[in-house]
């Protein structure tokens, strides 16, 4: 019995140490297993050298190093886990963290309020949201909230004056471009500008988000992750806002007051602008919550989309039906590629780059390849009849987008397939995705700046 007891307490010690290490967010269970193997090896050697069990344990722990420092190193080696380390602040820093969090809360509240009010500023000058001036709001959509979102990151990351200057220049240029063109009434290029300007400006947000690390692949990946997480938060907030708007209208109706103007003129537009800032702050502050949700969503929808696409292709091949070319079918295929690319990028950003290939990787490649085939068939169909349709701005924009997405997906599929065949590394897929980020913004900028004059503002 006395023989067994030291071994028993040693196991308890190791168990406690393991539990403690597991709470470090930057250290994954596999890493803990690896460290535990090391610790046991060290203890065995020390026991052989004649130390008592508890002495051996203490010496081995001491040689292993401080858990804080190890966790920090792990986070640096796996930069995708870095933010976890930032949020798992040691107890001593908790008080300082609380003050910083309160200050951040104030800044976020001020910026969100500013974004909400920015939407109402044009109204002071008699530009109404509805009616003939609706185009003004559409064109300037990105300019209400995005500069303030950028300001949030400028503040948070402490950017230098030079970068701030460039960012300010970007937004100023965007504001001039959005308002200088003499659009014809109901111009297609005006709609295209309204749709593409926020995409182009999103790059400026990215530069601010990266905080001087924009050149690094890891920083861009963080931004991609941030964008998709913000998208989820924003969707959730939009759902909540919709419910709130419905209740407001219905309750005031019950007492015979029409609250439609309050909802339509204030609640929805101001809320939509303010929610961008609040959403970004939530992503920054509560990353742990979404991080468990996003991979689940991708894993849920990737098989469904892959199955739909494969069944679609099989049906098309089986029945021999060509794609029926309608007015908006190219847009539909663009959207399909966006969804597939979104699933791919999201999976890439959530994936542990060191993990070995698994069934999900094959599924993802199957999804991308079937999307490529479907899009190829669609493009072939339109290429045959493009002269008949003519080059309208909408069609050129849709074709350009298709090309941008197609190039990305085709090369991603190639790299991913290389990884699956064991020829390449997963990091290549990651690097390609992050290197491609500016291309979207560049194409959007072309649509914004070149299209209106090229198509005679029609």
């Amino acid at each position, binding site marked *: 019995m006395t023989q067994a007891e030291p071994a028993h307490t040693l196991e308890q010690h190791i168990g406690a140490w393991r539990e403690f290490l597991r709470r470090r967010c930057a250290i994954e269970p596999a890493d803990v297993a690896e460290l535990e193997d090391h610790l046991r090896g060290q203890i065995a050697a020390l026991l052989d050298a004649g130390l008592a069990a508890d002495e051996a344990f203490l010496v081995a722990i001491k040689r292993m*190093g401080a858990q804080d420092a190890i966790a920090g190193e792990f986070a640096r*080696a796996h930069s995708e886990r870095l933010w976890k380390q930032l949020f798992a602040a040691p107890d001593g820093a908790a008080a300082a963290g609380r003050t910083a969090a309160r200050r951040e809360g104030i800044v976020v509240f001020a910026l969100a309020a500013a974004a909400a009010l920015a939407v109402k500023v044009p109204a002071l000058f008699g530009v109404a949201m509805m009616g003939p001036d609706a185009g003004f709001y559409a064109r300037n959509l990105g300019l209400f909230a995005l500069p303030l979102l950028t300001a949030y990151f400028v503040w948070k990351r402490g950017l230098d004056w030079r970068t701030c200057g460039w960012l300010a220049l970007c937004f100023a240029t965007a504001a001039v471009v959005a308002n200088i063109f003499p659009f014809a009434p109901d111009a297609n290029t005006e709609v295209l500008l309204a749709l593409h300007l926020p995409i182009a400006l999103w790059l400026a947000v990215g530069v601010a988000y990266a905080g001087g690390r924009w050149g690094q692949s890891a920083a861009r990946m963080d931004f991609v992750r941030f964008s998709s997480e913000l998208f989820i938060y924003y969707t959730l907030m939009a759902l909540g806002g919709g419910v709130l708007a419905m209740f407001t209208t219905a309750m005031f109706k019950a007492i015979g007051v029409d609250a439609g103007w309050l909802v339509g003129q204030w609640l929805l537009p101001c809320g939509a602008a303010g929610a961008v800032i609040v959403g970004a702050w939530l992503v920054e502050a509560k990353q742990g919550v979404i991080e468990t949700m996003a991979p689940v969503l991708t894993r849920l929808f990737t098989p469904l989309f892959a199955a739909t696409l494969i069944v679609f292709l099989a049906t098309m091949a089986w029945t021999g039906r060509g794609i029926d070319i309608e007015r908006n079918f190219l847009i539909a295929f663009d959207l399909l590629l966006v969804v597939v690319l979104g699933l791919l990028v999201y999976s890439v950003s959530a994936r542990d*780059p060191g993990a070995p290939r698994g069934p999900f990787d094959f599924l993802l490649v199957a999804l991308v390849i079937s999307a490529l085939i479907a899009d190829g068939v669609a493009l072939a169909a339109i290429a045959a009849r493009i002269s008949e349709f003519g080059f309208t701005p909408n069609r050129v924009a849709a074709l350009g987008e298709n090309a941008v997405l197609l190039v990305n997906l085709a090369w991603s599929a190639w790299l991913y397939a290389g990884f699956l065949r064991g020829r390449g590394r997963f990091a290549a897929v990651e690097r390609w995705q992050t290197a491609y980020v500016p291309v979207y913004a560049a194409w959007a900028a072309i649509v914004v700046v070149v299209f209106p004059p090229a198509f005679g503002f029609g």
Partner: protein
Amino acid sequence: MDIAKDLVAASATPLVLAIVAEGDTYGYALLKRVAELSGGQLQWTDGMLYPVLHRLERHGYIAGRWGESETGRRRKYYGITAAGRAALADQRRQWQAVDAALRTAWFAAAPAPG
């Protein structure tokens, strides 16, 4: 003698690559080999080895696989890759250049002690 932290950190990559190039190994054995090679002069905090290993694995210089130890515990073994050998050769050239420069400098400063 305490070797400066920066120097320990800088020499970690070539040292780990060189040891893994000797044959597949795991963390604890690797650290023992480091102590052996340096005559106990080069002391690493044990836990710090693993982030270095993971970084090298991510760069594709070494490849890790899970296996079992003699006692049946889960253990992660590392082996060198072709890219790792190339990196090692490159590191070796760099360190030899530094070493050659230092040797010349020592000789010029204090010709042949003893």
